[in-house]
C-alpha cells in the first residue's frame, strides 16, 4: 500500500463517492496515479479490508467501478465475484462508461480471462452481450471488444448467440467511442463470417468476409487473405460460382489467391468432380491447416446441384439416367432422384419427376407481392435519405470545405488543360482594354 494517502484506494474511493464532476474524476483516475502502481492500487482492498466494490453503487458510480473492476479482473491476485461483473454489465450507466473507453475494453478482456480461469466460456457470453448492447450509442457502432464477444461465442460453441449482434451491420466507426485499431475491424468481420458460415447463413457470411477482404489499407493483412479464401468457398457453396471482388479490394490479395491451390479448386468447380476429389485428397494437409476442410467438403457435396441447375437452362425434359451421366459423381438414378427432390424442396429448381423417370423442368416467373415491392421501395427511400444526410454532413465538414476552397484557388491558374485557353483569353482581354 502506498504511503501517500492521496494515492491510496481509500482516498480514491472517497473521491468516487463524493465528487459530482465526472470529468475531473476520470482525469484523476487516469492520470492522478503513478503509472507503475496504478493497476496495483486499483485492484487492492480497502484499509479496513473491505471489498471496495461492495461499498460502491454499481450504477451511480459506474466510472469508478469500471476502473476498479477492470484492474481487478486483469490482476493476478484479486478475485472478483462473477455476480458483480454480471450485475455491473446489466446496470452500468453508458454515459459514464463512455468517458473511459479503454477501461471498457480492458473490462471485456478481463471477462474473457475470468471465463478462461473458470473454464466456462459460456458464462462470458451474457455479460459481454450486455456490454455490447448497452455501451455503444447504437448497435451500428464498432467497438474494440466486438470480436472478443464473437470469440467467446465460438469458443463456447454457441454461434447462434452471436446472431443478435451480427444482425446489425456495422455502419459507424468512431475512435471516440472505443479505442479501435484496424485489427478490431478485421477480426470482427472475419469472425462474424466464420460464425455465419457455421450457421450456414451463406449470403450474410459472404458479406462479412467481403468487408474484411476489402478493408482499406496500404498493404494487405494476412487475415484478409484467409478471409478471401473463405469468401471464395462460401460463394461456391451458396451460388456455385465466384463473383469478382469490388475494385477497391487490394490487388495483391487476388494475385495471392491466384497462385494458391484454391484457384485450381475454383476452376474445377462444379463440373469436374473427379478433379475436385483429387485436389481434396492431395492437398488435405494444406486445407485442414487453413481450417477450410469443412467448407471445402460442403462445396464438393453441393457441386452436383450447380451442374444440374445449369441443365435446367438448357433442357425442358431429361431422363434421370441422362442427368446422372451429365452431372457425374452420381451412380444410381435414385441418388439423382433424391438430389432433385431436395433441390425442389429448397426452391433451387422447379421440376416434376414423372413415374417413368422423366424430369420436366419449368421456371415459373418470379412472383412478387405488393408488400415486398413496397418494402423495397421504403428501404430505398430510407437509404437515399440517409445518403442525402451524409452528403450534407460531408459538405459542411471542415476537411471538405478546406479542400474545395484550395481546389478553387488552383483552378484559376494551374489547370494544365485550361492554361493555354486562359492565357489566350487573358491576352484577348488585355488587347481589348488597351
Amino acid at each position, binding site marked *: 500500500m502506498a504511503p501517500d494517502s492521496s494515492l491510496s484506494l481509500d482516498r480514491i474511493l472517497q473521491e468516487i463517492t463524493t465528487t459530482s464532476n465526472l470529468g475531473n474524476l476520470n482525469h484523476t483516475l487516469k492520470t492522478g496515479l503513478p503509472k507503475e502502481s496504478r493497476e496495483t492500487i486499483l485492484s487492492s482492498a480497502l484499509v479496513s479490508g473491505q471489498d471496495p466494490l461492495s461499498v460502491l453503487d454499481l450504477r451511480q458510480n459506474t466510472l469508478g467501478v469500471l476502473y476498479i473492476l477492470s484492474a481487478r479482473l486483469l490482476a493476478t491476485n484479486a478475485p472478483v465475484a462473477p455476480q458483480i461483473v454480471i450485475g455491473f454489465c446489466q446496470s452500468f450507466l453508458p454515459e459514464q462508461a463512455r468517458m473511459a473507453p479503454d477501461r471498457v475494453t480492458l473490462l471485456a478482456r478481463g471477462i474473457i480471462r475470468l471465463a478462461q480461469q473458470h473454464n466456462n466460456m459460456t458464462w462470458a457470453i451474457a455479460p459481454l452481450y450486455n456490454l455490447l448492447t448497452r455501451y455503444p450509442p447504437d448497435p451500428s457502432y464498432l467497438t474494440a471488444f466486438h470480436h472478443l464477444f464473437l470469440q467467446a461465442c465460438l469458443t463456447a460453441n454457441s454461434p447462434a448467440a452471436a446472431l443478435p449482434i451480427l444482425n446489425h451491420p456495422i455502419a459507424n*466507426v468512431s475512435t471516440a467511442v472505443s479505442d*479501435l485499431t484496424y485489427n478490431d475491424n478485421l477480426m470482427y468481420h472475419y469472425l462474424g463470417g466464420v460464425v455465419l458460415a457455421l450457421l450456414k447463413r451463406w449470403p450474410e457470411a459472404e458479406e462479412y468476409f467481403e468487408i474484411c477482404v476489402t*478493408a482499406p489499407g*496500404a498493404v494487405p493483412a494476412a487475415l484478409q487473405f484467409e478471409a478471401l479464401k473463405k469468401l471464395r468457398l462460401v460463394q461456391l457453396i451458396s451460388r456455385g460460382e465466384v463473383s469478382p471482388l469490388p475494385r477497391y479490394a487490394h490487388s495483391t490479395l487476388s494475385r495471392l489467391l491466384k497462385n494458391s491451390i484454391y484457384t485450381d479448386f475454383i476452376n474445377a468447380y462444379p463440373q469436374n468432380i473427379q478433379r475436385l476429389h483429387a485436389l481434396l485428397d492431395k492437398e488435405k494437409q494444406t486445407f485442414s491447416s487453413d481450417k477450410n476442410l469443412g467448407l471445402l467438403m460442403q462445396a464438393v457435396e453441393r457441386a452436383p446441384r450447380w451442374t444440374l441447375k445449369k441443365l435446367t437452362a438448357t433442357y425442358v425434359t431429361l431422363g434421370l439416367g441422362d442427368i446422372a451421366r451429365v452431372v457425374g459423381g452420381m451412380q444410381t438414378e435414385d441418388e439423382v432422384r433424391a438430389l432433385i427432390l431436395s433441390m425442389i424442396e429448397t426452391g433451387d429448381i422447379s421440376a416434376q419427376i414423372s413415374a417413368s423417370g422423366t424430369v420436366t423442368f419449368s421456371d415459373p416467373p418470379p412472383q412478387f407481392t405488393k408488400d415486398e415491392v413496397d418494402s423495397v421501395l421504403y428501404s430505398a427511400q430510407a437509404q437515399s435519405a440517409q445518403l442525402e444526410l451524409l452528403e450534407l454532413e460531408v459538405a459542411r465538414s471542415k476537411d471538405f470545405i478546406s479542400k474545395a476552397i484550395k481546389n478553387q484557388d488552383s483552378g484559376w491558374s494551374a489547370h494544365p488543360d485550361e492554361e493555354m485557353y486562359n492565357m489566350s483569353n487573358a491576352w484577348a482581354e488585355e488587347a481589348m482594354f488597351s
Partner: protein
Amino acid sequence: MDVDIPEEQTAQSSTHHVRKHNIIPVDDQHPFDLDGYISNYSGRTAVDRLIHIISTCPTLAPDAFQLAVQHIHQSRDPSLYQQVMSAYEAGSALSETPLPSAMELSQIDTRWADETMAKNQAERSKLEVELKTYSNNMIKESIRMGHRDLGSFYRSVSEYATALKHYAKSREFCTTSQHVLEMCLSVLELLIEQRNFSHLPTYVFKADAALDAASAAAANAKEADGTAPAPAPTLLNKRKAVSEDRERVQSKLDFATALSSLANGSYQKAAYTFLKLGPAKDFGDWMGKLVAPGDIAIYGVLCALATLPRSALKSQILENSTFGVYVEQEPYVRELVEAYLSSNFKTVLELLNRYSSRHALDVYLAPHVNALTNMIRNWAVVLYFQPFASIRLDRMSGAFGWSVEEVEEQVVTLIQAGSIQGRVDSQNKILYAKQTDHRAELFARAIKAAKDIQATNRKVLLRMRLQQADLTIKAPKGYNSSIVDLLHE
C-alpha cells in the same frame, strides 16, 4: 525498323511442321482440279502451294510433285527442290497405299541446278560489289537501289531473313515517300510469301503513311506545274493518273490487311476488308504471284458467311459489282451465298463439305477452314431456329441433313454458349424458344438491383468511415517494403 530475324525463321519452320496433320481426301465427293488450280499461279507461290498440297493430300502428291519440279526449273532456287522432296516424303508417310518413289516421278536436272547455283553466286558477288562501290561513293539513291536489288535477289533464292534485312536497310536511304512505299510493298510481298502475317499490319501502316505523303507530294508537284504554262488537259490526266496509282497501292495494302486479319482469326474484319478490295487489275503482278482472284472470292465469302448478318451479305456480295467479278471465278461460291440467303442450309452445308478439300488445300485458308465452317454452321442453326417458337428436332435434322442426335448436340452447345435462347425437350426431341415474362423479370431485376446497391452502399460507407477514423491497415514496424515487392512478383 527492327526485325526479329531468328524468330521468323523458327516461325517459318514451325508452320512447316503444323501443316502435316490430317489427310485431305480428294475424290468424287470432294473434287479438286489440280492443273486448273495451279495454273492460276506463277513462280514461288505455285511451288509453295504445291508443297502444301503434297504434304497434306497423298492422292494428289505424285502429280503435284511433278508440277512442282517443273515450276522449280523455271525459278532460280534449287534449294526448293529439297523442300519439295521432304514434303513428298511426309506426304507418302501419311498415305496408306505406298506412293511411287520421288526418283521415278521426276528427276531434278542436276546440270541445271549447278548452273543456277553458279549463276546465283555470280550475281550475288556482282550485286554486293556494286553495293560496296555505291556505299563508298555515298550516293544515297544508288545505295538504296543496291539494297533493293540485293533484297530481291535474296528473295528469289528464298533467303528471306537476308532479303528482309536488305529491304529494311534500304529504308535508311529513301529520299522520297515514293521510295518508302516501294520498300514497304516489297516487304509486304515478302512477308505474305513467307506467311509471316503478324508483321503485316506494321508495314501496311508505314505504307499508308508513305502513300499519303507521296500523293500529297504529287499534288504539290502538280500545283507547281500548274504555274508553268502547261496545257490544261494533260494536267487533268496526270491528276487522274495519280489517284489511280494510289488506288492500286491501296488495294494491295487492303489485301495485306485482310490477310493478316484472317490469319489472326478476326474474321469479321477480314470479311469487310476482302469485300471492299478493288478490281483485280489493281493488284498488278500480285495476282498470280501471290493470290488468284478465285482465292479472294473464297476468302471473302467464307469470312462473310461466318460473321456478317444477312443484309450485309446481300449488299456486300450480291450487289457489289467489283467483288462480283471475283465471285465469277468460283461459281460455287455464288451458289453458296444464294443458298444461304434463301435459308437453304442443307445445300450450304453440302457445298461446304464438297469443297472442303479445295479450302483445306489453300495455304492461307487451311488453318481456318474448320473454325470458319463451324461458325457458318452455328449461324445457320441460329438463323434457322429464329422464327420458331418450338420445332421438332427431326425437322431440323431434315433441313440440315444431320441425324437427330447430331442436331441435339449442336443445339445444346449453342444454348450453353448463349447463341440460342431456347430449351430442349430431350424426351420428345423438341426445341422450345425461351419464353420470358418481361414484367416479372423486370421486377425481379429491379428488386435485385435495389438489394445489391444497398449492400454495396453499406459496405462502401463503412469503408469510408474506417478511412475517416484512419483505421487503415499499415505495415507493421520494421516491415521491409522490398519484401512486399518481391511477393508481388
